[in-house]
């Protein structure tokens, strides 16, 4: 090409300019597209947020106060972390996120003890389970008997402890097939023969108060686990004992101190166990590792700024913004007047539905993934069946959610005869929906376990199941958890299947069993979107959307947290 003197002189020069401009334009348009995609949604979300909290309705003084006490210090500290000490920045991110996330979790636990299992029921359940477990262990230690006797003990003791020998009531019409003519009716009832240990405990004349029950059967085991963990990482029995003891004392303090801060004693116990303990452990681990300790200052700065700001605006008499998203919104039931409307029953409904989803989808999903990765043969007839299953799972992940709704309606309501619109049906339907996602992500995590570990385990004479349980699953667990939490995030936002299975638009009382009618947050949002009043459209609806998004972001953030911790370990 460049043969003449002129062009060799400028081979690196100006004639490349056209292509450089073109390249630059291309690069910029690609960057622009990326930012456009993110920016569009960001702008929308800013509008939503603005409608939900209406910051501009606050006094200027109020805004200024908080800018000075909260925003500026937080930004300053954040800039410091970003430019000077990125490890401290990571610590700051976790140190701020952990209390918020665990508080949300504590909220879920409080709701659970409020609506799903009462503290006394939990107390009885935990106590009888412990007794059963103790007896089984005792049997295993004292009698190294045959497999059959052991099996009998393992099955019967827990059964007696938790269920007892239940009464049986049968009322079953025997019909001729096809014609449906009743021949005779099989009907008898046996009264309960042996009440379970659980029922016996519940029937005791004296039971500890709700808070003490939780202290004994909720805080105590968690404190023991924490003590064991601390003892292990610090290699000191004393430190372990301190950690466990401090947890119990902190929770037990609630029996006395909770009324002073206007909390119920049970709430205090839950908060101390679910929030204070993990935060304490995290702080301990940061200090022990001595990396990015200054990051711990961030939540302190934020909390102090918020408190000082609140104190100042109160003293100076500045009015805050006209919030839609406030405590009342989170704790009130739905209402026809926008100002009174709240999301509480739908929030509880979502939590309960998620419990069903988790119980239904997690074990099955992980089980399927284990089968496909560890057990499934690659060739032969079964091999091609397995191939088919894999293709099928990949495709199921793309089936529209509304179709799952139809499936749930037909399968659980019209075929199994459950009532439509109850928590169980909603949870099972959405469980089916996220099952493929759970399977695929669990498969990826299991595939990431190095083969050398499996070989080592098999070489030791471990059976397949022993290898899976002791080597593969522990190693894959963080990856499985990450994928599963993300899938649960998807589950909590699904709406169309809930419409199909008839989840109620408006529910005033939160569901109290898994077989009650329920509404969920996205279902409630959809219901509000049909209201004509602008206060619903721009106020209540925005608050509901922000609530939903915050819950989702929390779940995503915790998934990312798990993933980061896991990636650093490897």
């Amino acid at each position, binding site marked *: 090409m460049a043969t003449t003197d002129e062009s060799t002189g400028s081979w690196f020069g100006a004639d490349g300019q056209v292509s450089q401009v073109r390249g630059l334009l291309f690069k910029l348009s690609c960057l622009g597209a990326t930012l456009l995609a993110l920016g569009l949604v960001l702008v929308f979300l800013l509008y939503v947020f603005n409608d939900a909290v209406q910051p501009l309705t606050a006094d200027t003084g109020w805004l200024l106060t908080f800018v000075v006490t909260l925003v500026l210090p937080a930004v300053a500290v954040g800039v410091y972390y970003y430019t000077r000490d990125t490890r401290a920045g990571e610590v700051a991110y976790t140190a701020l996120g952990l209390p918020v996330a665990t508080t949300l979790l504590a909220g879920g636990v409080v709701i659970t003890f409020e609506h799903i299992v009462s503290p006394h029921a939990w107390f009885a359940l935990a106590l009888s389970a412990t007794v059963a477990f103790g007896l089984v262990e005792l049997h295993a230690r004292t009698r190294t008997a045959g497999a059959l006797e052991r099996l009998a003990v393992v099955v019967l003791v827990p059964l007696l402890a938790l269920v007892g020998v239940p009464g049986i009531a049968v009322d079953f019409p025997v019909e001729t097939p096809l014609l449906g003519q009743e021949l005779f009716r099989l009907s008898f009832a046996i009264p309960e023969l042996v009440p379970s240990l659980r029922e016996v405990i519940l029937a005791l004349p004296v039971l500890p108060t709700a808070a003490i029950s939780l202290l004994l059967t909720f805080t105590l085991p968690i404190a023991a686990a924490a003590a064991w963990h601390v003892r292990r990482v610090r290699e000191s029995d004393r430190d372990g004992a301190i950690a466990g003891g401090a947890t119990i004392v902190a929770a037990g303090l609630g029996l006395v101190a909770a009324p002073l801060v206007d909390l119920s004693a049970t709430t205090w116990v839950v908060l101390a166990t679910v929030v204070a303990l993990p935060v304490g452990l995290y702080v301990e681990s940061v200090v022990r590792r001595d990396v990015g300790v200054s990051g711990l200052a961030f939540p302190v700065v934020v909390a102090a700024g918020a408190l000082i700001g609140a104190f100042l605006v109160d003293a100076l008499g500045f009015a805050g913004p006209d919030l839609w998203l406030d405590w009342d919104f989170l704790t009130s039931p739905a209402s026809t007047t926008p100002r009174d409307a709240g999301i509480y029953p739908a929030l509880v409904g979502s939590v309960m539905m998620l419990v069903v989803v988790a119980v239904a989808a997690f074990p099955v999903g992980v089980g399927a993934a284990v089968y496909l990765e560890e057990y499934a043969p690659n060739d032969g007839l079964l091999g091609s069946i397995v191939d088919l299953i894999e293709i099928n799972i990949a495709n199921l992940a793309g089936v529209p959610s509304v179709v799952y709704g139809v499936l749930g309606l037909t399968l659980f309501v019209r075929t199994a005869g459950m009532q439509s619109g109850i928590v169980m049906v909603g949870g099972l339907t959405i469980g089916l929906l996220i099952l493929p996602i759970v399977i695929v992500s669990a498969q990826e995590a299991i595939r990431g376990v190095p083969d050398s570990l499996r070989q080592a*385990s098999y070489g030791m004479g471990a059976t397949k199941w022993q290898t899976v349980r002791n080597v593969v699953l522990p190693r894959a667990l963080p990856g499985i958890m990450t994928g599963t939490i993300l899938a649960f995030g998807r589950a909590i936002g699904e709406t169309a299947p809930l419409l199909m299975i008839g989840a109620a638009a408006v529910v005033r009382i939160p569901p109290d069993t898994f077989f009650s009618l329920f509404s969920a947050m996205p279902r409630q949002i959809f219901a509000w979107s049909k209201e004509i009043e602008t206060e619903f459209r721009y106020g209540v609806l925005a608050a509901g959307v922000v609530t939903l998004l915050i819950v989702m972001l929390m779940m995503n953030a915790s998934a990312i947290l798990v993933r980061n911790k896991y990636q650093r370990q490897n």
Partner: protein
Amino acid sequence: MTRDTPLETDGGDPRADGSGTAVADSAAQTDSSDESLLDSSFDVEDRSHASEDTDAIVEARDIDVYYGDEQALQSVDVAIPEKRVTAMIGPSGCGKSTFLRSINRMNDLIDAARVEGELLFDGKNVYDDDVDPVALRRKIGMVFQSPNPFPKSIYDNVAYGLEVQGKTDDVDEKVHRALERAALLDEVEDQLDESGLELSGGQQQRLCIARAIAPDPEVLLMDEPASALDPVATSKVEDLIEELAEDYTVVIVTHNMQQAARISDKTAVFLTGGELVEFDDTAKIFENPESQRVEDYITGKFG
């Protein structure tokens, strides 16, 4: 046991191990001169007990192994004596690891692998339908090419085999004894609760050996156990293998002919195509092999 071979011949780089340059150099000078072609380059130890053969504990009769359509082993016949060290040497891809893995049926884990022929362990064909490979592997321990401790504590690593095999009595004592036998106890006694991954490569491999011997198997299979280790760690592992042979039957696959010469009583030479060319006392193989191909291989003309 004494050791007078300088370690440099093992090579620091595990991949470029002794089958290459060092042997070829030394062979070049001995080749032309006399019949005992190897005595200057290989240090075959005088192992008095080696001469008296013990009963075979593992006996292969006409073993063929296929991976899909490809044949990895061709009618191998070999009898591995009890409580001796038997080495399998040969160039890459000659099937020596395949043979090792067919002893404890690790090849079962590969769907495409197929084994034909009889492989007797204690007189029982391990490929009989009624043999449970899990039960088999409980009697035959295995150590792998690169150290692969579980991401668990040192203690739990060694106790793993005891746990999965249901030998739950005296676990503490057995773990300590296994670590001691693997010459690791002194180094890790204070850190049994720490992760096995925190040890150095050589320590990890000895941990894997401790893990393999903790349940007290009868045979110990080692698949190039020193190939990923540095020379010092290699020599420790080699010492260990010689000591283990007092109680266990050791079958070791190695790329490194020096290593085979130093530590084994019997040597099997596999050559390309999955063919067992010669199997005899180590001294015989290295000093006066019958097959010309084995001689070529050992002197570095081939492989």
